[in-house]
Structures are given as structure tokens and as C-alpha cells.
């Protein structure tokens, strides 16, 4: 098993897609922080003093850590590219021929997928936060995040913990569709459609229910079924300030839900992979 992992990691580090995605992440972080900085500058001209509302480390953290916003979306797309290439060029079959079980090969792909996702995510988040801090400090008084979110150290750790679980789910989902479709176009399309479905799920509840109480109850229920509930921009913008969440229950739901989905897609994908012929 360690040989499968060693070879897959070696291949990943040599993969151009990995390096290109890393560069794209860096460029995106610079662009977004610059845009936020320009917004802050334009706000500053309307007031007496300097404004650090958007281009702050904390705001960049909350914006960049989400696996379903901006760069987060690029990660599963590129991961699918890498996995499908294993099928296209037949490199995956070499491991089966020399005696690895298909379940081992699939597990190896999952681990490499996780390394890919988390490395890129940590790089992007770290770089974004560093840029935000340079422009406006971490969480100055009056910043957007200081108004809408509790940003204690524990809250940040919980948010990052939940985001890691969502990355595990997203990796499992991307691997599943790449394995089932073995075709970049189909796998990416369906993968994005599934993510969009989970992203708009809270909007459906917002549109369906009118009173705060109803929305609150719906949100408290759906957070157990929507693996990206806390990373969804709709939640951040529309529900966060509206719904008085129970912090502990939120954290449990934010951890459990994506992990359950990750496990379902992982084992389903492994079963399909083990029982389907390899070309």
C-alpha cells in the first residue's frame, strides 16, 4: 500500500496540473485582495479616516477557506482532470496488473486527492490571509467580518475544521465522479451540478419560508443534510446574521454531515471501481 501511495505522490508532484493550479491560486489571491483593497480605498475617500472593511486577514480567511467559493471550485475540477488522466493513459491499470487490489488503488487515489486538495487549499488560504494582513491587518475594528462573525481563535479553528471536512467530502465526490464517468467533461459537469444543488439548498428554504422562526427551524434541519451548509455563500450572507445558531451543534453538524457524505461517495466509488472492468 505504501508503494502505491509513494508512486501516486511522486506522480502528483510531477503533474503540471498541480503546479498550474497552485499558480492560479496565487494569482487569484493577489487579484481578490487587490480588489478588496481598492474597495476599501474607495470607501476611505467617502469617510474621514482609512477603512479596512474588506482587505483584511480575517475577511480573506473566511472568503478563501470555503471549498465552494472562487478557488475552492477549481480544486475538484483539476482533481478530476488528474484522476481521469489515469484512466485515459491507462497508468491506473499498471498497478492492478502488478498485484494491487482495486480497493487499494482506489484508496491510494483518495489519499492523493486529499493531499492535492488540502495542499492547494492551505496554500491559497495562507497566501490570501497574508495578503489581507498586509493590506489591512487581521481583524481591525469596523471590518466586515468583525460585524457578522464571531472570530475568536476557537471559532476560526472550528471553521477551518469544518472546511477540512468539506474538502474531504469534495475530494471523495470528485474521485467518485471521475471513476464513474472516466471522462473529464461528464465528471466535472455532474460534480459542479451536485455542488450547486447543495449551495442553493438554503436559498430554497429562504424562499419557501417567510418568518424568521420558520427559516431558523428549516436551517437547523437542513444543516444536517447539506454537507456544505456552512461554506455556502448564501448562508454566510443571508442566514448568518439572521439565525441564532447553537455554536456546538453547528460544529457537530458541520463536521458530521460532510464526513458522512464523503464516506458514502468513497465506499460507493470504491465498490463501483472494484466491480467494473478497466480498459
Amino acid at each position, binding site marked *: 500500500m505504501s508503494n502505491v501511495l509513494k508512486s501516486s505522490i511522486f506522480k502528483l508532484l510531477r503533474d503540471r496540473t498541480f503546479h498550474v493550479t497552485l499558480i492560479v491560486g496565487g494569482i487569484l489571491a493577489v487579484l481578490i485582495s487587490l480588489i478588496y483593497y481598492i474597495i476599501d480605498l474607495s470607501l476611505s475617500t467617502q469617510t474621514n479616516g482609512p477603512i479596512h472593511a474588506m482587505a483584511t486577514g480575517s475577511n480573506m480567511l473566511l472568503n478563501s477557506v470555503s471549498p465552494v467559493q472562487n478557488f475552492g471550485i477549481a480544486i475538484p475540477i483539476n482533481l478530476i482532470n488528474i484522476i481521469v488522466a489515469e484512466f485515459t493513459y491507462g497508468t491506473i491499470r499498471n498497478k492492478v*496488473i502488478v498485484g*494491487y487490489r482495486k480497493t487499494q488503488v482506489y484508496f491510494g487515489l483518495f489519499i492523493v486527492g486529499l493531499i492535492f486538495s488540502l495542499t492547494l487549499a492551505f496554500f491559497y488560504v495562507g497566501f490570501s490571509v497574508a495578503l489581507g494582513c498586509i493590506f489591512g491587518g487581521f481583524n481591525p475594528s469596523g471590518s466586515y467580518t468583525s460585524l457578522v462573525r464571531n472570530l475568536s481563535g476557537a471559532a476560526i479553528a472550528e471553521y477551518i475544521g469544518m472546511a477540512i471536512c468539506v474538502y474531504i467530502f469534495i475530494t471523495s465526490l470528485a474521485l467518485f465522479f471521475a471513476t464513474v464517468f472516466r471522462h473529464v467533461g461528464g465528471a466535472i459537469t455532474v460534480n459542479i451540478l451536485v455542488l450547486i444543488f447543495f449551495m442553493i439548498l438554503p436559498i430554497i428554504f429562504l424562499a419557501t419560508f417567510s418568518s424568521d422562526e420558520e427559516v431558523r427551524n428549516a436551517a437547523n434541519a437542513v444543516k444536517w443534510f447539506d454537507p456544505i451548509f456552512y461554506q455556502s455563500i448564501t448562508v454566510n450572507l443571508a442566514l448568518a446574521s439572521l439565525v441564532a445558531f447553537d455554536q456546538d451543534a453547528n460544529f457537530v453538524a458541520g463536521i458530521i454531515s460532510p464526513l458522512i457524505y464523503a464516506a458514502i461517495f468513497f465506499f460507493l466509488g470504491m465498490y463501483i471501481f472494484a466491480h467494473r472492468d478497466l480498459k
Partner: protein
Amino acid sequence: MEETYIVETHNLTKTYSGRNVVNNVNMHIKKGSIYGFVGENGSGKTTIMRLIMGLSIPSKGDYSLFGVDWKKSEIYKIRKNISAIVETPSLVVSMNAYDNLKYACYYCGIKDLSIIEPTLKKVGLDNVPKNKKVKNFSLGMRQRLGIAVLLLSSPKLLLLDEPMNGLDPEGIKEVRDIIYDLNKQGITILISSHILSELEKVATDWGFISHGNLLEEISSQELNDKCAKSIEVGYHDGNKLEEAIKKIGISNYKNSSNSSFRIFDDIKPLDLLNKLKSEGVEIEDINTSHGSVEEYYFDLVRNGGNNNE
């Protein structure tokens, strides 16, 4: 003494969309043999190879590798003795030749990476620039690199599906030499190729397949005997030769030109020569005229797997 088979299949069947692409195949590959696998496109050769490699799951029937049934858990250990090229070598096109071999070393569990350079040299890729990616390789270079990957793991069984595809004559010869050398080292080889003339030079055993049915398994010696369709006898005196032919009991012959007779009866050339000499016939020359493997295969398909008539 019982024959040792490295690969043995029992009624092996693979069905796609209700159609048997491999149909009750009973195949036997002897230890140390080079098994030439011949069949038209879509005959089921590649599917059988995929089944043996563990890439596909049989719909019916069984197979064993080195005496171990494919359903047993030991089979995964056994598979470590196998290397294969299916249709085209499976390479990471975004990496160079050296990194491809390094990658293969890692998943094969080879710790000594110093074997990479000599292996590249063996297949003639040692002078390729390091920055040249496999995606810029010619088909021939890719085939060579694919063979280099095979050589790394010191396999006991090699499965080669069209390994000479896209190679120039020099490359074909190199691959043939490699196959021959590996077999000399005791490696059993299953090889399919459309270049039957090349296969003839290396194969020790043959399997002929058509439309998913294994028509015949035969040794090279038997195939040679069967392909030796006629003996051509050159003469000075045609009348005297014909008289002698009749006298020694040859019934199936014809005067093929103004200077030779062709004998189609089942008789060894040396026996015929001795008999004609004893009749006092002066013979100009005597040759066996071989039919090709290709002709043999087509006859086999036409006769539904029976070329004994």
C-alpha cells in the same frame, strides 16, 4: 509427466451486452514458452489478456496463474510476477522516460533506482534528452519505454499485446531480440501480434482464436509439420521420376513446372529422397514448401478449427 502451465483457463467466458466476446476458452501456456496468440481484430485476444491481468472479471469460467485460482486471495501476490503491455504502453505522458521508470519502480516496490539507467540503455532510450516528455515521443519510443517498464520488475510472465505496433524494422528486430533474450532467462511470454512473420521467429507455441473461440493450440513443431504442405522435387528426367513416384506409392502429386514435381502426401522429405534414390532416380534438388502461419490460420477459420483434413 504432467505439463506445468503458467496460465490455464477453463471455459473462460466474457460477455458484453449479451454477446460472448470470449467463449468457453480453454487455454494452456506452458512454463518457459513463447505463446503466439493469433486472431483477427475483435477476436477476443485482448479481452483474454485483460482477464488474465485482472483488469476484467470473467462472466463465466475460471483461470489460474502459476497454479493459483484467480478467485483466491494469493492471486494478488502471484500477480507481482506479471508485467504487461496492453495495446499501447501505459505511460505518464507528462513525465520524461527516467521519471516514468522511477514511477514504475515506486509502485513495483523497487528500492534500487540505479537500475533505471541500464534499463533505458537496454531499450535504446538512454540518449533521449532528459527534458523530452513522453508526449513528444514517437510511437516506437513509447513502445520501447513500455518494454523498459516491463523489464524493471523481473517478471516471470510477460503479456504483450501488439508490442511491435508502430515500430520500424530496426525496432521490431530489437523487440524481437528482447523477447528472445527474456525467454532465454526463463520468462514465459504471451504475445499477440499482427506481424505473423515476426511471431513465427519467436513463438514456441501457438493459440489461434476467432470470434471469441479458441480454435486450436499447437506447438511450433506441430505447426511446422502441418504447414509443410508439399515437397518439391527437381528432376532431369520427368518421366522416370513420375514412374518412381507411382511405384513407391505416392498418390497425391503434380508436375508443377517443367523441372519439378510437388508431392502432397504425408511423407518426410528424407524418406522420400531415400525411396527415390533406391529407385535409381537422379534428383536435381528437393525442398519442402511451407505454407505460412497466415494461410494456416485462414484455413483453420474456414474449417471451423480443424486443419487435419
